[in-house]
Structures are given as C-alpha cells and as structure tokens.
C-alpha cells in the first residue's frame, strides 16, 4: 500500500481526517483538563493538611 493514497482517502481526506482529528482534539482536551483538575485538587489538599 502506498502512503499518499492512504492519506488522500480516495479524495475524502478532509472529511475522514477532519472527523478523526476533531475526535482526537475533543477527547485529548478532556483528558488534559481532567489531569489538571486532579493535580490542582491534590496540591490544594496537601497544602491544607
């Protein structure tokens, strides 16, 4: 298989990669924000005790 054929997705590159990129950004943002929320809570709790 040829990689440039793969990335062109038979002419549907914008739609296919747009979909997967959106998913990656949305779920990636959720993970990053969750980790930040967890970290800041942990920092606050360790300061208080």
């Amino acid at each position: 298989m040829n990689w440039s054929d793969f990335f062109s997705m038979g002419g549907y590159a914008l739609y296919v990669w747009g979909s997967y990129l959106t998913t990656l950004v949305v779920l990636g943002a959720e993970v990053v924000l969750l980790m930040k929320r967890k970290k800041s809570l942990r920092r606050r709790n360790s300061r208080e005790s």
Partner: protein
Amino acid sequence: MNLYKYASPAAFYPLAGKLIPWFAIPAALLFVAGLYVGFFVAPTDFQQGDAYRIMFIHVPAAWMGMLLYVLMAFYAGIGWAFNARLASMMASAIAITGALFTFISLVTGAFWGKPTWGTWWVWDARMTSTLILLFLYVGFISLQSAIDDHRRADRAGAVLALVGVINVPIIYFSVQWWNTLHQGATIRILGKPSIAPPMLAAMLIMLAACWLYSIAAVLVRVRCIILEREQTAAWLAEGAA
C-alpha cells in the same frame, strides 16, 4: 463483602482510583486496534469509497451520547429518590463525557453528510433530536453549576435529566418514525447486520474502546467531584489515597 459500603463517597474514592487503570489502558489499546482494523483491514466501500470510514467513530460516539444520557438520568434519579450523594456525583461526572461524545457525533456526522448528502447539516429528525440531546446535556451542566447548594443542584438536575430521557427513544426511532435523510440502523439486535464483517468488527472494537474510555474518564472526574464537595470531611484529612 458488603457492596453497599461503596455507596459512600469515602469508600468509593480509593476503589475508583484502583479501577481507573483497568479501564484506561484497555481503552487505549482498543482504540489502536479499532483504528488498525478500520483503516487497514476493512475494505473500501463500493458506494461511499473511503468516506464511510467516518462510521467507525461516528456510530460509537452517537451510541455513547445516548447511552451515557440514560446512565446519567438513572444516577440522577437514584440520587434524588434515595438522597444518595455518590449517585448524584456520578450523574454530574457523566454529563461532560456524554456531552462531548454527542458533540463528536454531530461534527463527524456533518463531515460524513457533506460528501454523501451534499450538505453539512439538515433539520432532519435524527439530527435535530441529537442536537436537542446536546442541549439537554449543556442544560444539565449549566443548571448544576448555577446553583451553589449541591443538594439543590442535584435535585434540579435530576428533574431535567429525567424529563429529557424521553428524547433518547425519539433519537433511536427517528429514522423509522419520520422520513429522514439519515440512513437506518446498520446493526440490528435480531437479524444480520448489513455490513461486511471487518467493518462491523472495527465499529464494535471502537465502541468497546469508547465505553472503557468513558468509564475511566467518569471515574477520574467523580473522584475530583468527591474531593471538591467533601473537602471538609474527616476521612480526607486522614490521607485516604
């Protein structure tokens, strides 16, 4: 073992912490496996070309949006009826992940609609009811954050969540009840699915990955909510991990 003890946030907090890697790691592996099968094993569709590969994320995301809503309403209802703090916290933790999957299903649907239907969006029964689902999630989240008293916020959220459940069967059956542009169900509980086995496999692996991901994300978030709401509780001061 008394399972009811895990209804208390103090007992659930460390249990949830131990469970998270058991969902997060398989989720990551299944995402990789599902994408591999979806892009390298599943053949090009003879009608839609490679555009159909959007299905592997679109369909699982749409299912997760609906399933997580039902789960959120269930927990909100339990929290309301039995005054169970942890159940209400679970409902709040589910809402954001559910909203994100609904958003993904709408965006990927637009990306799929443009090449196959020639339009990003139409006010068709399925898409309109899915947009209403997103608004219900957003309404639940903003209602809860607008009320300072957690118990009152939980009750108000529960009413909204339970009333909104009626929208889920409307989404599911919209393609049968109304004449719509959206295609009918590909997977049927009874009878043969209407797609090739590797396509079906990729979609089911992605669905499993989305489920495991959602459970992991919800457990991380519910632990944050427990910490935020119970920060004055004695058990936290004892250094529970």
